[in-house]
């Protein structure tokens, strides 16, 4: 029997996830209000730039972290395609969170705008060229909407698992619970296996989770 810890993400992964979740949601909100406000644009832009750099630093740490800490196995409630979509959206989010701050930085470079975080002046990373700024500015907007869409899809998918399937998906990333107690796992194992059998029978009747000794047919 596994203990609860092995089915959760490692503590550094969970901490990074939630710190970044807060930063990214705040950043998206800042961006949205900023673009619609005559009065608060400068103030919000002054927050948006350094927060973008902080997100860039965190995503680099997070990419290193994900290479060091393997994620826990997939959920028994997720079929092959759902796992593929989940994996793909994870890559998409990581990619967007890496590229989006870099494009923002490059935009400022292309416009010839100074960029400083606190007392530190950051060097340009792209040539000063207006047409390049114009292109990057469009890409920054498109990726912002894509990031918002990915975030919303991610949120709804996790909520669907947590509130509709009630499979405890969220607790794998939770900071506030101890994960699943081992005894609890046993009490629900039969019911879960039954459910999984139903799920798998549609896609692949040979991949009975119990018969194979595996919860997910590969």
């Amino acid at each position: 029997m596994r203990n609860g810890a092995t089915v959760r993400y490692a503590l550094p992964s969970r901490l990074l996830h939630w710190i970044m979740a807060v930063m990214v949601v705040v950043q998206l909100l800042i961006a949205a209000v900023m673009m619609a406000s005559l009065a608060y644009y400068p103030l919000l832009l002054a927050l948006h730039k350094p927060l973008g750099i902080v997100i860039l630093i965190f995503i680099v740490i997070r990419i290193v972290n994900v290479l060091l800490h393997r994620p826990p196995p997939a959920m028994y409630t997720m079929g092959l395609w759902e796992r593929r979509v989940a994996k793909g959206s994870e890559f998409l989010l990581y990619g967007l969170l890496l590229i989006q701050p870099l494009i923002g930085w490059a935009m400022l470079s292309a416009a010839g705008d100074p960029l400083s975080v606190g007392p530190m002046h950051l060097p340009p990373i792209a040539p000063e060229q207006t047409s390049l700024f114009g292109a990057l500015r469009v890409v920054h907007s498109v990726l912002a909407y894509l990031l918002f869409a990915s975030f919303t899809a991610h949120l709804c998918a996790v909520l669907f698992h947590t509130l509709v399937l009630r499979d405890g998906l969220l607790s794998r990333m939770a900071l506030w619970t101890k994960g699943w107690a081992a005894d609890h796992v046993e009490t629900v194992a039969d019911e879960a296996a039954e459910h999984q059998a139903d799920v798998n029978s549609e896609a692949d009747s040979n991949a009975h989770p119990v018969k194979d000794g595996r919860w997910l047919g590969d």
Partner: protein
Amino acid sequence: MNEDTPPAPPPSREPVSRRRALIGLSAVGGIGAATIGGFGFARGALTPEKLTPARFADRFEHVFGRHEGFRRNHAKGLSATGYFTSNGAGTVVSTASVFRSGTYPVTGRFSLSGGLPCAPDNASVVRGLGLQIDLPHGEQWRTAMVNIPVFLDSTPQNFIDRLVASQADPETGKPDQKKVKAYLEDHPETVAAMKIVHQHPPTSGFENSTYRGLNAFGFTNEDGQTVPVRWMLVPEEPEGSEKPPQEQSSEDYLFENLVRASSAPLQWHLILTLGQPEDPTNDATKPWPDDRRTIDVGTVTINSVRAEAPGNARDINFDPLVLPDGITPLDDPLLAARSSVYAQSFARRSRETHHPSKIDAEAVRRA
């Protein structure tokens, strides 16, 4: 989520009933909709009457038409280069690096107000001078100044309302006097500002105009003391020695005269005016009393005036909030609006095809 690792045992799981599933689905849908709606609200999508930077720029396009690659306001202009020689006197009021003795490169832009890049020059149209001073350690000071002693509007909403009210009628080619009159009746501050503007008639050209920053900024010195400051560029050439006007010579006479005048370096003194605590910092329509202390902090020299081209002033957004450390905005609502709308104008024109500006500075020089 990793397909290679062995699968997990089932987690704690409560039975799924139809009722709970429906409640769960509603919650998921509700939270998803709230997220999208909240974002849309933040983005201004649900409040079409709210004046956003994009809608501000839209109104300029509505009034003047859309002219690809040009600024939405102050569309007609010329690029200039030169330098700022700081005499060190400004360090008394601000720690900003620009006030330390030295010489700093300047890129500038002379312009006429309005969104038409080919409008004929007219002495009564507001003249602008934008400057970018490049400072050590990647700092910049950008400022966009005009040749009137006070601004005509106290808020961004008033500014755009006045612009729309005084839009030229497509049939007569002139503003509808009824609309203009109605606007002025509701805005005594604009009437008062116009009176001051009329008391300071424009000079013969760009080269001998006084340009003012109009908005007040906070200048902080080494002791941490902050004073409100307005600045202006006062021409070296006394206004009395101007040449006779050559208005009829060309549609672009103001710019052409500037090009000719720039065969010798043009110089302006940068003068800081220090405000007293009772002087308004949030209303650019109100002048400060004439007896306020001023400091001459150095000289701006323009030694080259050229047509707008890639890499020169054409590509600079003269955002009044790009400031060196030691200068900060105060409570003037125009500044934030200018910064946001200029950014919108810059974003739009930077993705459009650029067309050459009307004034061919080289041809004027050769003639």
